[in-house]
């Protein structure tokens, strides 16, 4: 049967459907096909019938006859029925090669409902997708072959956290075999999703795939090239290529090449980085590459150069502020390139900088001085401490550096004596000094930095409906560390300074005054302070100062009832834990205040009420 002719006729009737059946009369294309149908019709009845249909369609309709639209429908219905029997199923290509199966070892045993939920999450947008995927991954749903393509396409998800989760967890969970799949579906001209694919391919760690990465590095989109170049770091056979790419026209490519060379640490690579640094054009790129991957030998060479340029810069003319800025820009890159480097040459440079404090300060190069102070702070040496003392004398800005350096070298007692102690006379003198207020403030801040928000404490979010997640908060130093690292006299110092949070952290039972101080704070300031962390600190302080659980619970419920929190978003976990220890009989008292609260704090209090009520029933 002449399928081609039938197909042609189908094209023509399709055209008429699109253009409108009224145009069928006298249609010359159909007219041209008609003789062939008539000819074939002599042998096959079907063609004859089709021929008649065509003839009827192109005849101008006479009165009483069917509309052209009906004739078109009749013809097409018959034609389609014929065509349905002519569908070809044979391949157009050559002989097939038998499929062997892959080493993935993935099955398809997960139930449709579970798959559908993940599919929906990964193919639509909307809230809650990330949780669905996370949960599904935890339950092993992704170990189903049907989700493999979706997991890979999730690498390009518009929600970056989801894409990263796919890159770091889901896709690698398929094992090294997934690298082949990714190579097969890799599009070097693509964007972020392809970059993520490269990361997974690289992480699979199969040397035979480096060639693919190398190709992408040469001929992909800019994003892909940069990522691929980074993946080639440390591969000896590609060093030459990396060296060439440092001369690329595009900055992101050069940047990636320098970073890869710095990571690889080969001799040629380091030489190239040194040249780039000396050449000024790519000095910035080389500096950032070295900051990421420091190299000691190159650091030494750069240090020598640093000293030279620093001296030159100091000697140069600084009257023009523009020139001064240019000089600073050149020098500051040394600080970046040498971020993690420490060597005798640098020791000398930073000593020189501190000794020349006045001149550098005059230029406004405070950042340079800060770096010097930082360098000495971490040096843990007597000389370093001496230099910092000198700096501190020049400017209160360096008090905190000096304090931290001293902390490493002195005992807790000596430390207190050095910064807050001394004879009565010294204290009087200190108080009279003109920067006394500033000094005290800086000292307090330095202490707070170290003592408050110093430790991560984990809490179970038992009231949280969504799942048993843990959350951590930063809290004050633990009691043991306070006792070991801080002189007890700091507590008096803090009370004198009226620093309630520090007092809370440093509080200890048996101290005269601390209990009274904290209670006063609770009663006075609690009414105004909105900060919840502050309230929780105070209650920690009360605990440390030796108040019993019952006493603290009594205080806490009175705080709740007096509504001193002034609408917090959520109640601090520490306080909630304390509340969970309430006697069950408090349930109604809390239920009475719940309506005053909103947001998360309301949920927490509602949970608390349920919890206490259930305890009530048990007892």
């Amino acid at each position, binding site marked *: 049967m002449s399928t081609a002719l039938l197909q042609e006729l189908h094209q023509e009737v399709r055209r008429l459907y699109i253009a409108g059946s009224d145009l069928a009369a006298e249609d010359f294309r159909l007219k041209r096909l008609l003789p062939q149908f008539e000819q074939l019709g002599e042998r096959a009845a079907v063609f004859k019938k089709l021929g008649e249909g065509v003839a009827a369609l192109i005849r101008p309709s006479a009165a009483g006859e069917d509309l052209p*639209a009906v004739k078109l429908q009749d013809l097409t219905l018959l034609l389609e029925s014929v065509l349905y029997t002519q569908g070809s199923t044979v391949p157009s290509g050559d002989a097939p090669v038998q*499929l062997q199966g892959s080493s993935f070892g993935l099955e398809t045993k997960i139930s449709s409902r579970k798959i559908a939920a993940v599919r929906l999450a990964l193919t639509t947008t909307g809230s809650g997708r990330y949780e669905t995927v996370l949960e599904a991954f935890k339950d092993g749903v992704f170990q189903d072959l049907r989700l493999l393509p979706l997991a890979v396409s999730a690498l390009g998800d518009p929600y970056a956290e989801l894409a990263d989760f796919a890159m770091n967890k889901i896709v690698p969970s398929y094992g090294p075999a997934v690298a082949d799949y990714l190579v097969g579906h890799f599009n070097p001209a693509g964007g972020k999703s392809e970059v993520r694919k490269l990361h997974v391919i690289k992480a699979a760690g199969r040397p035979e795939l480096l060639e693919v990465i190398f190709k992408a590095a040469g001929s992909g989109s800019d994003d892909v090239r940069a990522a691929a170049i980074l993946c080639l770091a440390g591969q000896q056979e590609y060093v030459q290529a990396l060296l060439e790419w440092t001369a690329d026209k595009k900055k992101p490519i050069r940047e990636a090449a320098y970073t890869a060379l710095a990571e690889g640490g080969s001799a040629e690579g380091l030489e190239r980085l040194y040249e780039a640094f000396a050449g000024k054009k790519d000095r910035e790129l080389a500096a950032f590459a070295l900051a990421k991957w420091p190299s000691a030998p190159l650091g030494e060479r750069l240090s020598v150069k640093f000293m030279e340029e620093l001296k030159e810069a100091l000697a140069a003319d600084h009257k023009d502020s523009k020139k001064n800025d240019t000089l600073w820009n050149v020098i500051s890159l040394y600080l970046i390139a040498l971020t993690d480097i420490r060597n005798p040459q640098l020791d000398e440079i930073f000593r020189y900088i501190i000794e020349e404090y006045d001149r550098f300060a005059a230029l406004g190069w405070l950042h340079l001085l800060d770096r010097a102070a930082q360098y000495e702070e971490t040096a843990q040496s007597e000389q370093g401490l001496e230099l910092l003392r000198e700096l501190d004398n020049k400017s209160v800005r360096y008090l905190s550096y000096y304090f931290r350096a001293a902390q490493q070298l002195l005992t807790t007692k000596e430390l207190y004596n050095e910064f807050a102690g001394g004879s009565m006379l010294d204290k009087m003198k200190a108080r009279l000094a003109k920067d006394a207020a500033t000094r005290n403030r800086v000292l307090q801040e330095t202490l707070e930095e170290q003592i408050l928000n110093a430790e991560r404490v984990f809490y179970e979010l038992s*009231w949280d409906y969504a799942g048993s997640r843990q959350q951590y908060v930063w809290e004050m130093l633990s009691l043991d560390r306070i006792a070991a690292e801080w002189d007890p006299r700091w507590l008096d110092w803090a009370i004198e300074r009226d620093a309630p949070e520090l007092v809370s952290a440093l509080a200890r039972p048996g101290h005269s005054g601390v209990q009274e101080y904290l209670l006063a704070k609770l009663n006075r300031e609690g009414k105004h302070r909105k900060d919840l962390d502050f309230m929780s600190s105070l209650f920690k302080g009360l605990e440390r100062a030796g108040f019993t659980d019952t006493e603290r619970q009594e205080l806490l419920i009175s705080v709740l009832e007096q509504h001193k929190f002034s609408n917090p978003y959520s109640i601090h976990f520490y306080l909630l834990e304390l509340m969970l220890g309430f006697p069950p009989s408090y349930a109604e008292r809390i239920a009475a205040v719940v309506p005053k609260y909103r947001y998360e704090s309301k949920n927490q209090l509602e949970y608390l009420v349920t919890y206490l009520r259930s305890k009530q029933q048990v007892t």
Partner: protein
Amino acid sequence: MPELTSSYVDSLAPNTAAIKNGQGLVRKKSFIQLHRTENGELLFGQCAGSGKTPYECSADFVAPDSPVFRCSCPSRQFPCKHALGLLYAYVEGQTFTVAPVPEDIAAKREKAEKREENKVKQAAEGSTAKPKKVNKAALKKKITAQLEGLDLLEKLVLSLIRGGLSVIDAKTLKTVQEHVKQLGNYYLSGAQIELRRFALQLGKGEDREQGYTYAVQQLTRLHAFIKKGRSYLTARSEDPELALDHESTIDEWLGHAWQLTELKDYGLTAENTELLQLSFYSYDDQARQEFVDLGYWLELSSGAVHKTLQYRPYKAAKLMREEDSFFDVARVPLLYKYPGDMNARVRYEEMSPRPATAADLAQVQAYAHRSFAEAVKLVKNQLKNPLGDKQPVLLLHAASIGVNGQGEYVLSDESGVQLVLEDIPSLSQGTVGLLPYLPPVCFGKCSLLVMFEHQMDRGRLAAQPLSIIHAEGITRLL
């Protein structure tokens, strides 16, 4: 009481959200009391809700095969999250204290027993159920309305063809949608769906050129339906005693929803059959405005591939149970078969599961078509019927599955006849892309469940694999 596992509880849940919420209650420790009876047949407890009084929920396993869940919460989902949570708590191994059966549940059990007894009594007494009286006048009125509706539909279709598809714009589509609504007044729900499908094919906008071919097919389908429907209805209006046509699908096209009793009356049932699910998926059918849960099952005694369909209308989707894959063999005492083509729709009211065995899998292999030439002939015979199911599903025995230089996946039978496997447009998910990543066991002695579809533009009959049945089990691709 059946052994409770978390996967069993999962399978009871109406949807995945209910699973999550039920587990959430356990995690949240919302259960205030957990009890069980001495014999373990009844689990009950109290669960805190948002109100002051907790909900009383229970799971009654007095009839182990059909557990009863009760809860005092107002949820319309069944079982509700509280009952599921109760079971999850039990599975997790939380302590359930022994307690006597609460009064209200004892009362409810008694009532249920009485109901059962009554049913048995009624069945025994009234085995000769009253023959259903047909209201002839009403039927006549309905048929006349349907005929009028067909005229209306024809008028619309012809006017669309007259003007041409290219001039159909948003305004015309709106008229079409109005007609869709009107057809509801003429008892033509089947036609309503097909007309809406036509509107959707043209409404998508972006790729109209491709949509045209499907739209033309849909128009001829409507044409065939109008012709056949009209002659069928005319015949019925002349002879109101005429029974429903239980051999073709025309009644379904006209919007008739077959009732199980009707199917039974026409003898469209099979007793004591066993079904094995070969493939299952859910999709959103916008023309029906329903979610559809579609399963393909092999009847182990006859080798026929049936399908189960569950429609979940958008509006009720949240409250209805979402069907799921079924991995056991379903033993069905009474199977109802709808009129239809190769893959007739089936339904059952009761079934009990048994694990699938190697013998079952061997049976599947034995039923697979060994000659592709014959299989394709069967398919084409069905396709050429204008009102036939255009996506027939068949089980094919594979001598080899390979890929050629053009990237075509090729299935061959024992005599070397080849069939190209490719993704078909009417399935929203592709499967052939997965073939190279399947485990080696899939390419040994195996059979494939494939769905056929004719692609008019290309003149090709495409086949998409849905599942591969091999020695170790069924690998579902969809």
